[in-house]
């Protein structure tokens, strides 16, 4: 890594955009600002790492970008379309078709095998069984888990679980994957392997990745690095493109 050509980066209209996004919470009589007038845009193929200490608003930002939460003011645009007026069902459809999610605690469904967990989003899309099987097999192979397809999450290591979660996020062919502290529950070596995998998939599938983390090691993978502080986003200069090897 270390050169522009290593990233699938398509210039043009932003795929995901936050305009003047503010999110407040009411704590008793006091209004707490989790995010304040945030401006953000992600292009297709971006690999963005958002850093910030605990409580800085990282997860709130991710929830808003993945449209599982709504801003107090401002708007989130996906493919240029405002999401503020969309119904719960329309937002669910957006998540189902355009967005992949990776969680800190993997959030795999324990009663399903690795393959079934990966298959689940396709089930939500009502894809036919044959197509589901083919795509799941290909995706598990891509993340190196084809031999563990039948295992339940409790039979997998933390790294393997996170790879299943990544495969699940990518199986529907989303435009963007939002990852919340994907390495937080992993040891450093496994964390690196997971980040390598995400970078590779970013390059190969030209999928936008937005990774929220407080782990400085993850920042090394960033094509764009954004710091979040007191509810505001500050774009940082990565000095060309950072490389995990550098």
């Amino acid at each position, binding site marked *: 890594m270390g050169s522009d050509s290593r990233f699938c980066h398509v210039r043009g209209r932003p795929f995901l955009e936050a305009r003047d996004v503010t999110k407040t919470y009411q704590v008793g009589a006091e209004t707490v600002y989790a995010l304040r007038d945030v401006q953000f845009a992600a292009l297709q193929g971006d690999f963005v790492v958002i850093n910030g200490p605990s409580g800085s608003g990282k997860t709130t930002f991710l929830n808003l970008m993945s449209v599982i939460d709504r801003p107090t003011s401002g708007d989130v645009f996906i493919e240029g379309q405002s999401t503020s007026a969309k119904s719960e069902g329309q937002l669910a459809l957006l998540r189902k078709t355009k967005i992949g999610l990776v969680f800190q605690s993997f959030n795999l*469904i324990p009663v399903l095998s690795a393959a079934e967990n990966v298959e689940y989003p396709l089930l939500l899309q009502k894809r036919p069984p044959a197509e589901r099987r083919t795509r799941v097999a290909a995706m598990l192979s891509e993340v190196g888990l084809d031999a563990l397809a039948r295992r339940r999450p409790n039979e997998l290591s933390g790294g393997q679980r996170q790879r299943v979660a990544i495969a699940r996020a990518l199986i529907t062919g989303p435009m963007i994957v939002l990852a919340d502290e994907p390495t937080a529950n992993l040891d450093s070596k496994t964390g690196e392997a997971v980040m390598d995998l995400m970078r590779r998939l970013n390059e190969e599938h030209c999928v936008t990745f937005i990774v929220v983390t407080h782990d400085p090691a993850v920042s090394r993978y960033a094509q764009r690095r954004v710091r979040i502080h007191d509810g505001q986003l500050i774009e940082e200069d990565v000095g060309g493109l950072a490389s995990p090897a550098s």
Partner: protein
Amino acid sequence: MELKIALRNVFRNRRRTAFSLTVIAVGTAVFLFVLAYVGEALLSERLSSACETGAVQVADERLFASQANGYDHLISPELQARVVDLVTKRPGVLGTSLELDFAGLIGDANGSTLVVGRGLTPCDCVPNTTCYAIEGKPISGGDAREAVLGRRLAAKLGVDTGASINIATGTVTGNFSAATVTVVGQVSYSLGTVEEQLGLFPTGFVQHLLKTDGVERILIGLDDLNKAPQFADELRRALAAEGIPLGVRTWQDLSTGYASSQSFYAAFSGLAGISVFALVFFSVVEILTISFLERTREVATTRAFGATRWRVFRGFLLEGAAIGAIGAVIGVVLASVLTLAFNAARITWMPPGSAVPQAIHLSLSLSTALVPLVTVILATVASSVYPAWKNARSSVVKALQAV
């Protein structure tokens, strides 16, 4: 896959599931047992009614209307022969019995008491049923001078089988008539007051005693009691065509108590169903609530991936239905085993109004099993509605933070 997920979730916490399944299975088995008992009781009552009245009965309309005066309603021998001839040609007829009742005194030198006598001609008129449980010799045909006395009547008179006893009554013309008969057997009857006065005699003998050759009723046995209304309609038309001035009634027309029993047993079954529903509902609702709330974050994850609230809600309902169905099937198997054991024990009882004690034979059919099956599934689905709704409505953001 939704069903697969539901089934796997059912068995996620085995201890809780075992408790739920036990409650559901026991509820189903008890309900099914109640329904089987009700079915048996109603069947016994149908058969007892058919023994008393015949599947179809032919008699003078005045008798049916309780407007008979003395013996003016008796059916003449000529009409008896024509009716029997008309009836026996028809398919499904098992036979006919000619009956003639009287009231009189019965006794010996030690004393006498009231007897309600029934003259009858022997007939296997009710399928697979012995209408009178007689200890000793059954009633012969013809005009033999013999009697089968109600057990209590025999005890009251202090007579036993083989004893001679006197009968006295009025003839159809109002004269005094008496005869001596031999007691050949004793009969049981579910109603003590009836058993205390009941005497069965050959119809020919009663005709001789009453100085008549008429009978009051012609009882017709059919191989299927359900065909009685249709048979009665056809017979009515046939009698009218032949110019025979007699009325026709089915066993249902004459057994007014059967309709009351049906209503009683329907209410009893309904109450049992409601009780089982409530038992299952309240036992399972808390377990499902805990079980569903434990999966708040899982639900949030699926919703984050685009599952709609309705899909989540439906998934939980499916889980409720799955646990209900599994428990119900276990309950049906349990009830079947209990039924086999119960039938093997050959417990007998005397159905209300019956003249004969019957071995209780509970039978479970698919249609009988369907009622408790549907009841408990509805109960478990109903008990999953609130926790499912609550979980499906929860905020994804908050739920994702749940531990």
